[in-house]
């Protein structure tokens, strides 16, 4: 069982080593990186390439660790007791399984994605320490212990909004997805648009990396934005020359809305491009 990347996902060597280490030693893999570099997609692709089920647990600011294990639905039990439902005598009927339970229970050792763990409360990772370490937890209501027969592959993503506790980090493998270099980027583009014109891609990539080098952008365009932009370029069927237009009016690349996500950035870019053109003359 080895992860090698898929036809839709270009995995760098260091990423593959980290993923395979996490799979072999059955430890969680913590993935960080700039937004839009494919952290969430990674879990999907691992599941796809290993032919496993993917269970996603998206974390919000209100998510509590307990919700991942199970929840006891006392309200419906109270209601059922009023209606004289027979189900009411068994408390197990009112235990709602969480994502972790689902993953532990699954015999096929699925891929469990805990997405954006940094969104939750600061103590959230600490509350999951034992559960992720031993892959088991205790249900008080029914007095049973849920244990993973086949340990799931756990992928955790973080956007660095909060710092994670050391005790939690020590139990994980860690990988930081670096922004891909031009070569890897060309590979990624080739994977997504196999029959796009070569010249258009190289023009687009040059423009894209120039744009990322511009200082002071609020949100640098990332891989997912580049792919969106290329999609638009292809749909519009623009010739590569259009990307090199020297006209001051088109100082900003065509269809820039896919790349720059706020008006200050567009404005800054317009000004810089205008100045650059003037100097070039």
């Amino acid at each position, binding site marked *: 069982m080895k992860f090698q990347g898929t036809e839709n996902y270009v995995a760098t060597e*260091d990423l593959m080593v980290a993923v395979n280490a996490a799979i072999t030693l059955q430890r969680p893999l913590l993935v960080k990186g700039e937004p839009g570099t494919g952290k969430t997609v990674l879990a999907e692709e691992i599941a796809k390439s290993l032919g496993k089920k993917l269970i996603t647990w998206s974390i919000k600011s209100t998510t509590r660790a307990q919700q991942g294990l199970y929840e006891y639905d006392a309200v419906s039990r109270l209601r059922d007791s009023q209606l004289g439902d027979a189900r009411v005598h068994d408390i197990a009927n009112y235990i709602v399984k969480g994502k972790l339970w689902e993953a532990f229970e699954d015999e096929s050792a699925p891929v469990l994605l805990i997405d954006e763990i940094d969104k939750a409360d600061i103590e959230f990772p600490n509350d999951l320490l034992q559960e992720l370490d031993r892959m088991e937890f205790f249900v008080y209501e029914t007095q049973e212990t849920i244990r993973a027969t086949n340990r799931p592959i756990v992928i955790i993503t973080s956007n660095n909004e*909060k710092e994670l506790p050391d005790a939690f980090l*020590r139990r994980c493998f860690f990988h*930081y997805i670096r922004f891909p270099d031009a070569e890897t980027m060309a590979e990624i583009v080739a994977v997504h648009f196999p029959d796009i014109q070569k010249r258009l891609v190289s023009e687009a990539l040059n423009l894209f990396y120039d744009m990322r080098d511009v200082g002071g952008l609020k949100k640098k365009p990332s891989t997912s934005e580049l792919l969106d932009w290329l999609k638009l370029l292809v749909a519009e069927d623009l010739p590569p020359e259009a990307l090199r237009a020297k006209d001051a009016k088109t100082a900003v690349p065509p269809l820039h809305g896919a790349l720059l996500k706020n008006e200050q950035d567009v404005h800054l870019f317009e000004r810089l491009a205008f100045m650059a053109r003037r100097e070039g003359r």
Partner: protein
Amino acid sequence: MFTGFFYKLKEARIPVSLREYLTLLEAVEKGLANYAVEDFYYLARAALVKDERHLDRFDQVFGAHFKGMIDLADGMDEVAKADIPEEWLRKLAEKFLTDAEKAEIEALGGWEKLMETLKQRLEEQKGRHQGGNKWIGTAGTSPFGAYGYNPEGVRIGQDKSRHRRAVKVWDKREFKNLDDSVEIGTRNIKVALRRLRKWARTGAADELDLPGTISSTARQGWLDVQMRPERHNAVKVLMLFDIGGSMDDHIKVCEELFSAVKTEFKHLEYYYFHNCPYEGLWKDNARRRTDQVSTWDVIRTYGADYKLVIVGDATMSPYEITYPGGSVEHWNQEAGAVWMQRLLDHFEHAAWINPQAENWWQYHGSIQIMHKLMEGRMYPLTLEGLDRMTGALNR
């Protein structure tokens, strides 16, 4: 096995623990490193480094530590002493040698023989040239190039994959600029600030109110389920930061505090001042001259339920607090002390955080004055001080 490396990482202040070290060993034992140096590098990185800020330091330590082992700099004896498993070298050779070269190894009498020959050559070479290792390295067709895991040597394998280019991955130090980013230790600050949380129930009723249900059921005679909204942190904080001048020494710790409070409190307002709050405060330090907000407006805008936290070193000339016109920047009609008093009269819960060490306070007249104005509610910018502050603000 890699104990030396482990301790060097510790020396470089990368937070590695025994547990992570054992994980690495376990992974190596399971054959994950595949006996290729790069794979080992990636594996060690994934197992030992848990924060991108430490990646650059890790690269440096890795480079420094394994350089001596992998270079054949000091000839065969060094290699014998260094504890690289023989399989590593074997695999390396397999990876980088062409079929012709492999045949040559065979012709030389297999691996053991090859090592012997290599040793002999190295000794010869020492006699002949000074720069012994170079000879091995640049002779690209020599099978020995494969061991010399230095930029010159690896060139044999360059066409294989772009990940095997001549410069070692860890020597590229690609994570350099991640090293000095902010947010160091903000977690501790946040945990200290947690005590300031004030829970309130607002929003949609989606939680069972058990005591409410019981009392309502008892009253009605039938089961009457009561719901209530979930609890949220509703504490409101107004922060004033001293900026510039003597505060420059404390920029780092103040940035940490600022980024911690910004994520911890939903209702957070902040303004800047210089040395002592006077009639104007500002939000953007670059436009401090043009975009000032009147302190009166601040007092009127934020209700008395806001907790006022002032961050400053209070290190200035005492006149800046006590006399009109004492400000170093402009002519202030009223003394700083007057403005401080107005703020304190309005905001019942107030505290001053001072980044200056507490045992220094007694030597600065201005700190003494401010301490008195704050009625003793001045706390040092340490975790313990923050703890005392949150306790006082909750009172």
